[in-house]
């Protein structure tokens, strides 16, 4: 059966000098899926996202985002995606409302639509009162929510989220999860990295695992579970793939 792919890479490689951060990965993210991209610290998750969103040029390999090569036509791709990057990408000296206005303007959204969508998003993210506060005075959680609101405002077809739940309180986390699930149910695609495996397990339909810059597993959750043996949690599956460190029990006996 042919599945339309929202993100597809072939041999995606990225070097930093002599260090290979991403080593020939082949991603296949089906359109309309919630794709959890997992890996231990320093595995290459953020570098992969940066390559996919056009912040970094791959050293080798090809990328297709929503059927378009982002290296050949970056503006067209950026019009159809939303990104919550690692550093949250916000202007410190704009207010919450102004940040959304900026995003609307660069996406060519008319002022009336921009106003309507901004109001909805600020309301949903519980940022209405902070709409006139400068981002520099936002807490980390508020910044994260604003960054997500900015990514959602142009109504993208594909969302890249780098650790979106880090530093978010339980209530906001629940709201965001519901929002993301609703986004996927309406045909959107999400590419998410997170260290919180429970969240990935609950939300994702598909999972990719990267370790040392290489893809070690990819597929739907059911496929991966079937491969690993039934009854395994995602955590057990993940540790099995990237290798857990059992030495911790033996060492540090002085603690």
């Amino acid at each position, binding site marked *: 059966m042919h599945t339309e792919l929202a993100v597809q890479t072939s041999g995606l490689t990225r070097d930093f000098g002599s260090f290979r951060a991403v080593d020939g990965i082949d991603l296949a993210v089906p359109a309309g899926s919630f794709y959890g991209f997992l890996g231990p610290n320093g595995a290459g998750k953020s570098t992969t996202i940066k390559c996919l969103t056009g912040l*970094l040029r791959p050293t080798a390999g090809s990328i297709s985002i929503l059927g378009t090569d982002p290296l050949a036509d970056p503006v067209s791709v950026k019009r159809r995606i939303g990104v919550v990057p690692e550093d949250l990408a916000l202007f410190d000296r704009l207010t919450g*409302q*102004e940040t959304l206005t900026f995003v609307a303007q660069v996406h060519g959204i008319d002022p009336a639509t921009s106003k309507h969508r901004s109001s909805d998003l600020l309301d949903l993210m519980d940022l209405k009162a902070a709409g006139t506060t400068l981002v520099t*005075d936002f807490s980390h959680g508020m910044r994260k929510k604003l960054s997500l609101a900015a990514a959602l405002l142009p109504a993208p077809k594909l969302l890249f989220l780098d650790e979106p739940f880090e530093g978010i309180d339980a209530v906001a986390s629940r709201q965001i999860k519901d929002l993301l699930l609703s986004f996927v149910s309406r045909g959107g695609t999400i590419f998410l990295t997170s260290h919180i495996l429970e969240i990935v397990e609950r939300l994702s339909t598909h999972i990719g695992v990267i370790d040392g810059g290489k893809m070690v597993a990819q597929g739907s959750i059911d496929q991966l579970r079937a491969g690993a043996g039934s009854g395994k949690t995602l955590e057990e599956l993940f540790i099995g793939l990237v290798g857990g460190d059992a030495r911790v029990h033996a060492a540090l006996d002085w603690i």
Partner: protein
Amino acid sequence: MVRILRAFAWLRWRMLINSLEKTGARDRLERFSIAMERLGPIMAGIIMIPSTIVLAIVASAGGYGLGHGDQPSMFFEAVRYILFFGPIASIVGPLFLPAADRTNPVRLLLLPIPRHTLYAAQAATALGDVWTILTLPIVLCVPLGLAASGAIASAIVALAGGLLLLAVVVGLSALTTSLLHLIVRDRRRGELLALLFILIIPAVSMLPGLLNAERHVRGAARHRPAREEIHLPAWAVRSGAQIFALYPTELYVRSTRAIAAGDARTSATRLAALAMTAAALHALGMFVFARVLESPGGSGGRRTAAAREAWARTLPGLTPGASAVALAQVRLALRTPRGRSILLSPLVMMGVFAAVFLRRPGALDVGGVALNGGLGFAAFTSFICLVATLPIVMNQFAIDNAGMTLALLSPLSDAEYLSGKAIGNALIAFPPAGLCLLVAIAIFRSGSLALWSAIPLSLIATYLLVSAPAAILSALFPRVVDLNSIGRAGNAHGLAGLLGMLSFVVAGGSNVLIILAATTWLKRPSLVPVLLIAWCVIAFIISRLLFVIARRTFAARRENLALLLSDR
């Protein structure tokens, strides 16, 4: 205590070495950029070696002269004047050092260290400050000189005095640093302080030039009778002298002089005063430091900005994206102390110049530049408005910090982004320049219309010629900055700033040549606007061509820019 001080000394040493060794450069150009940035401090370090040697020689000669009964000793007088600046530098210095150089003391609370030891560790960092390092050879070599002349007892007293003076300098530095931490803890207060300092410094730096200008006023003023000297009342002179005698370096100098002259009582009195000053400063320093440790990590209400429809509009002639970039740039300038200073400091200067002009109508020499009437005044001040934008214009991408990532992720073409930045910078530079021009017209109301019109045309031509090189330099030499900073942490990359300044001078100079050609050689001032309009057209074409290079440079460096900002 010694163990902890040693640990802090090691910490600062490793931070220095790591900053030199581990540059994190991604390519040759970044390595070059980082090397250029570090050249200034390295050169300063190299210059300090001969300076220290010279100071040591002068101080030794001063001590030796005192020991031989030379009163006053020429070298010791030199020592006196040099030392005078130590306490001043120890107050002003911490205000201008990047905040990163001064460890946040609240973080140290997590360590199992008593508060008085923490204070000692923080105060000890002042021993590495330039002014302390330059004070050290003096206070050590004066006693050496005295000892060499055979006055051993005087040498011991001078050494004690010198160490007390060092304690005072360190105490002042520690107190200023703690006060600064306490003030900037409230963000609004911190920003206000930064703005005040940024505005005051240019005005103060102009004072010598203006005072000099007062002396060089030409024309009728030259033949005026000299004004009567102002005589202060005797009590004011006496009080001033008494207060000055209590200045720490004066206490040290007078104590050393007295002991060399055999007046042990006067010397002991001065030393006691110096010791009391040091003790009082450290007691106060410890008190303020304790307040810093007790106060929360940050205070002050959240800063808000009224929602204005104007910010949501699209600037005429620009795409919505480019317009959004331009308006974001303007808001950055309006909402940061450094940005506000760019907008306000030329106006402060203009106020000072206008006051001088109104007091002494006629020509004014400022650093060798003759400002003839309103035209000169308007040209000078409006050009300063353009040059004042250097910290933003020559680092136009990196000043956005994380905001730049948002721009890079947005569906903006490089051309849109660069044109938005160029227009944004123009919107920051031109309103103050226009205001200077209007004020000059209002004050002077004389001169030919053709020459008045030359000023805005020259500014436009200058900006057109500089905007593309500014984008190229900003892409090649980005610097992560803090526009809330008073000191160099808010400046553009040194090389970008230098080359940017040169480009302003060259571009501005081309207009001067055109004006001179029309007025002096062709003797037809009415031709000035015509020639300058033609020059604006040529500058526009040159600018368009240079922007092709700017776009290519930006495209080639955008990845480095993104990585630089995410690594910050």
